[in-house]
């Protein structure tokens, strides 16, 4: 059975071109780039070139403003813990309630360590209110860390505007954004529209490079301590022997994303839009999460009222279709996604959320297959649900009344 991979916000297929670029550094050019002998000059030059490429693709920033890390989680930890460690006169951090755990849980840890953290709320479409942000700014605000696009819903946040407002208020405020879901997909101009951002995190495996490589843009002059102490690699800002092959692969993957963007993004968005339209037309009581907000073109997050997401994923998987869910049973915790809870998705639907995320490799035929299969999967589970009237194909009357004001619990 062919796999239909629609979970690209979780990870992506490694592009064959990227693998080709990496191979020499996994075979013949294995030398440590810090070594002195001639043989090491190849890997050292490759890293230099990769850094230049990435700096150019981020909006012609300086190459020494690009740090290589192991993943976006490390980039986020470095950005947040690093700036907190280097700016002890300030003790207030602003982030959002819908960050990826790699920021959200770091922010929770800051609270435990005695800092004050504001988690900006979002509305039912997943949007931030800029007035909330302005009100949260304080004289002792150290850091603003807000993601560029949400991994679950694809909702985009106006981080460029937020960065400008923060800097106009107080140039001493450091602004970080976790752009893991947008780098590659959207053009990022850290010398132009995003010039107020100090720190930007992303990883390779979301843009067709392998897992195990990430990067952190750190603008010159940003006060930030290293997270990993060690050798003098990355100008002492991140110890550890450089992951040469993966660094080269990341640069190649970013080049490919940039080359293909103009053709890919409209095509991917058209497929996503068609998937959304058809599912909404075929399935009653299906809501599109984040529908009212500007969203990434590749992401579709739907919530099916009165069923649970794990059983949906299991059936999808039996047809070879890979997707993900924000339901409690798939999260490792016993509560549904904090993102959907922050959006006050009704509790009648929150456990039935499914995310499809597309990529360069997605095809119309794959989308057709989901459109064909997904409605019957939902219907199968609803027949078993104590809240669904199978004969009338609608919620039972008492369940209907739950839907009206059903905000998610524990939020």
């Amino acid at each position, binding site marked *: 059975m062919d796999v239909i991979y629609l979970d690209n916000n979780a990870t992506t297929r490694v592009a064959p071109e990227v693998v080709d670029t990496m191979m020499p550094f996994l075979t013949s050019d294995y030398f440590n780039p810090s070594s002195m002998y001639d043989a090491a000059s190849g890997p050292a030059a490759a890293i230099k070139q990769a850094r230049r490429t990435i700096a150019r693709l981020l909006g012609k920033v300086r190459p020494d403003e690009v740090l290589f890390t192991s993943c976006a989680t490390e980039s986020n930890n470095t950005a947040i813990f690093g700036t907190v460690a280097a700016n*002890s*006169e*300030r*003790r207030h951090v602003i982030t959002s309630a819908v960050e990826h755990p790699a920021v959200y849980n770091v922010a929770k840890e800051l609270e*435990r*360590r*005695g*800092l004050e953290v504001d988690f900006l709320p979002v509305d039912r479409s997943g949007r931030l209110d*800029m*007035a909330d942000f*302005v*009100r949260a*700014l304080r*004289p*002792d605000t150290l850091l603003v860390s807000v993601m560029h696009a949400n991994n679950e819903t694809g909702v985009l946040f106006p981080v460029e505007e937020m960065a400008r*407002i923060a800097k*106009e*208020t107080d140039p001493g405020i450091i602004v970080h954004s976790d752009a893991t879901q947008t780098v590659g997909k959207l053009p990022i101009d850290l010398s132009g529209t995003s010039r107020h951002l100090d720190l930007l995190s992303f990883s390779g495996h979301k843009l067709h490079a392998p897992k195990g490589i990430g990067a952190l843009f750190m603008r010159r002059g940003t006060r930030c301590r290293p997270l990993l102490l060690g050798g003098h690699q990355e100008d002492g800002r991140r110890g550890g022997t450089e992951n040469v092959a993966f660094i080269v692969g990341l640069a190649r993957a970013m080049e490919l994303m940039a080359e293909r963007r103009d053709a890919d993004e409209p095509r991917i968005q058209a497929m996503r839009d068609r998937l959304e339209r058809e599912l909404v037309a075929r399935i009653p009581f299906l809501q599109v999460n984040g529908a009212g907000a500007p969203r990434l073109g590749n992401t579709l997050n739907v919530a099916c009222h*009165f*069923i*649970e*997401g*794990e*059983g949906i994923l*299991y*059936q999808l*998987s*039996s047809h070879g279709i890979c997707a993900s869910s924000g*339901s*409690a*049973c*798939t999260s*490792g*915790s*016993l*509560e*549904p996604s904090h993102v959907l809870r922050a959006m006050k998705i009704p*509790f*009648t639907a929150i*456990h039935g959320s499914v995310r499809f995320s597309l990529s360069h490799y997605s095809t119309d035929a794959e989308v057709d297959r989901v459109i064909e299969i997904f409605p019957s*999967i939902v219907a*199968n*589970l609803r*027949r*078993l*649900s*104590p*809240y669904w009237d199978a004969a009338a194909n609608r919620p039972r009357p008492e*369940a209907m009344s*739950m839907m009206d004001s059903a905000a*998610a*619990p*524990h939020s």
Partner: protein
Amino acid sequence: MTWNYSQKTTELFMNAVRGGPGSHMGEIADPDGLGEHGSIACGDALRFTFRVNRHPSDPRLDVITEARYLTFGCTSAIAASEALCAIIEEGSYTPIGALKITNDDIVRYLDGLPQQKIHCSVMGAEALEAAVFNWAQRRGVNLAELGIDIQRDEQEEGRLVCTCFGLTEPYILRKIRELELRTIPDITNAIKAGGACMSCHHTPGGLQDLLDQVWGKQPTMLRELPVLPTARVPAERPRSELSPYKFAKEVERVIDQQVRPQLHKDGGDLELVDIKDLIVYCRLVGACSDCVAGGQTLKLLVERALKDEIDERIRVVAV
């Protein structure tokens, strides 16, 4: 986290969703026993119904002939519901006899469940118990006289320990004993308590204390978490000589008198978002909000007026 369900579990699940032969999915109309457990808010819920062959003289000798379920939940919750119904139908149990069926029997029927899914089997056993209690009420059987202790009120009466799933101290204590739960993960796997916000794990009277109470360990001494030294007082920012109230009133007055009339001419307006010391945050609304030059216009127009009228140090930030 991929699925590591037994073949039996996946077979029961797939047969149920396909509406295949032998599935117990459904609801018995006018049942002899009805029990529910869980809620949609908590992520799984089961409605369990059974029918009995009524004994002409002694209801205690009724025999369960048919069992059905409707379940909102994951793969294993649905499979556990199937297992529960199958065990009961195959065993020709009396309702009182069915109380001997435990969650372990359900797990065994499924050839095992992943640890973190044990609560699905507990849900089945709880719904069965509720259904038997319901049967006893309908048939006028006094379970307490028979020495059967079903405390349906404990949930309402006890102190709430796990607020996320609404579980009380007496209930959790009973389950710790009944199911021999030894650790916090054991508790979470079996009855979900402590599985969401986790704040009840080590608080006084929390899950660890309840475990210690049952199994007689010394309470853990909680060490205080290190707290960073408090921040130095941040550098003073320039402030107006006016009180914050007077300053805000002045800003509003100047905006009303000098800025709004100009914006109104173009069908626009201005919203004052916030004031922090000498920084005034505002945004354009109405016709002006889409104007490309909006941000700059706003800044120049408003800032000039406020500087001239109130304080040369005022800055305007467009939101």
